[in-house]
């Protein structure tokens, strides 16, 4: 239960971090450590070099630029949870963060680390999928912007090259007055979710749905946008019956089945939680349901 030996590096600049990651053999990034260090303690992961991003100021910060919220990858989850800009502009993210792990893990865990680790039961990847976030990836080759749908490739697999790191995450800000909803089901608060849903709704005149996003997590190998549910909602006047029938589209997912929950149970949870998240989103958008 002790990790294997490694050399530790604590760069202060993003450029230095990228160079270390590119040139050191068998090197990994240390962000919050809440997922990586357990694996190192089990010796499930053995590295020769650890590049700690904890002192790279370039990777912190929150800014609103051109209708997008830009968050540094090393922002601690706890700092995001309470940040006024997040609560105001991306309340779905603030809500989801309450469900990520526990206070102790959020104090150290980072948004970038969670996205790079890409656990199928994680909340933050699903939130980024709901927002169609854009990730800014950094390496010695420079920066590249990758839409989240192209970033998430499969079970704990992302588009990150071995010498690449997430530098920042950009979330498009939905119209003031939009609704959001977030629900997850776990055996205990803070446990890995068996299933979860993140919803965004923009509702216009006549209660007509202008935009909709519904992302599920915990149910498949990566988070899933329920395109069929969104299509069923857009352009229609919102009500409880429409939400229920739209959420039923969650049955179409390809669920994972394991010792924690079978596939059909996950499908059922996906529909129930999807409906609840959409109901909350509609209410928060001012609709009386």
């Amino acid at each position, binding site marked *: 239960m*002790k990790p294997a030996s490694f*050399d530790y590096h604590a760069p202060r600049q993003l450029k230095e971090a990228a160079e270390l990651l590119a040139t050191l053999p068998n090197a990994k990034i240390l962000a919050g450590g*809440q997922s990586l*260090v357990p694996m190192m*303690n089990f010796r499930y992961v053995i590295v020769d070099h650890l590049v700690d991003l904890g002192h790279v100021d370039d990777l912190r910060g929150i800014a609103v630029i051109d209708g997008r919220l830009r968050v540094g990858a090393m922002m601690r989850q706890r700092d995001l949870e309470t940040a006024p800009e997040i609560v105001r502009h991306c309340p779905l993210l603030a809500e989801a963060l309450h469900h990520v792990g526990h206070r102790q893990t959020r104090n*150290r865990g980072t948004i970038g680390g969670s996205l790079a680790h890409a656990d199928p039961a994680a909340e933050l990847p699903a939130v980024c999928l709901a927002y169609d976030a854009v990730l800014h990836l950094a390496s010695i080759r420079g920066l590249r912007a990758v839409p989240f749908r192209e970033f998430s490739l499969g079970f704990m697999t992302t588009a990150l090259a071995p010498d690449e790191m997430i530098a920042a995450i950009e979330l498009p800000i939905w119209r003031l007055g939009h609704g959001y909803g977030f629900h997850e089901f776990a055996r205990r608060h803070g446990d890995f979710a068996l299933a979860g849903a993140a919803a965004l709704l923009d509702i216009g005149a006549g209660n007509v749905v202008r935009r909709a996003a519904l992302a599920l997590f915990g149910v498949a190998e990566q988070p899933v946008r329920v395109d069929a549910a969104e299509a069923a909602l857009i352009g229609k006047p919102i009500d409880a019956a429409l939400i229920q029938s739209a959420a039923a589209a969650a049955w179409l997912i390809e669920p994972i089945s394991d010792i924690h929950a079978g596939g059909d149970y996950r499908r059922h949870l996906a529909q129930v939680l999807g409906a609840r998240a959409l109901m909350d989103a509609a209410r928060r958008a001012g609709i009386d349901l």
Partner: protein
Amino acid sequence: MGKQATRISVNGKSHARVVEARLTLADFLRHELGLTGTHLGCEHGVCGTCTVLVDGRTARSCLMFAVQANGSEVTTVEGLVPDGELSVLQQAFIDNHGLQCGFCTPGMLMTLTELLRDNAAPSEQEVREALTGNLCRCTGYAGIVKAALDAAQRLRAGSGA
């Protein structure tokens, strides 16, 4: 491979050491400094017995390397109050049967110290949510929750608030 100079302030006292990079903060506290109040229950971040404060925030010390705490202030259970005394929270644990074997207790105290510092009047639900990252096998949590609420009340009364 991997030895590093580091300087960590623990309970107000600065310690300079050369340690392996792979030495966890928990093992640094326990073996380098002899502060065995911080416990190891799982070493993979689920049980909370290793909880300490790093720069004022709770952290699982089994998931941090000592070298990451270079330049930081760490508070362990031994540092909550001067040796020989008991904090209001610790006394509340005694008075409310908040411990049996005591193994989870240091971690519980650190987590609740952070909670009560940030929220002087938590509801029972808020106490229970704050404790989700700390496991107890003996008490069934009821005494711990009572102790936390009792301590909160005593602290409010004591401060004249």
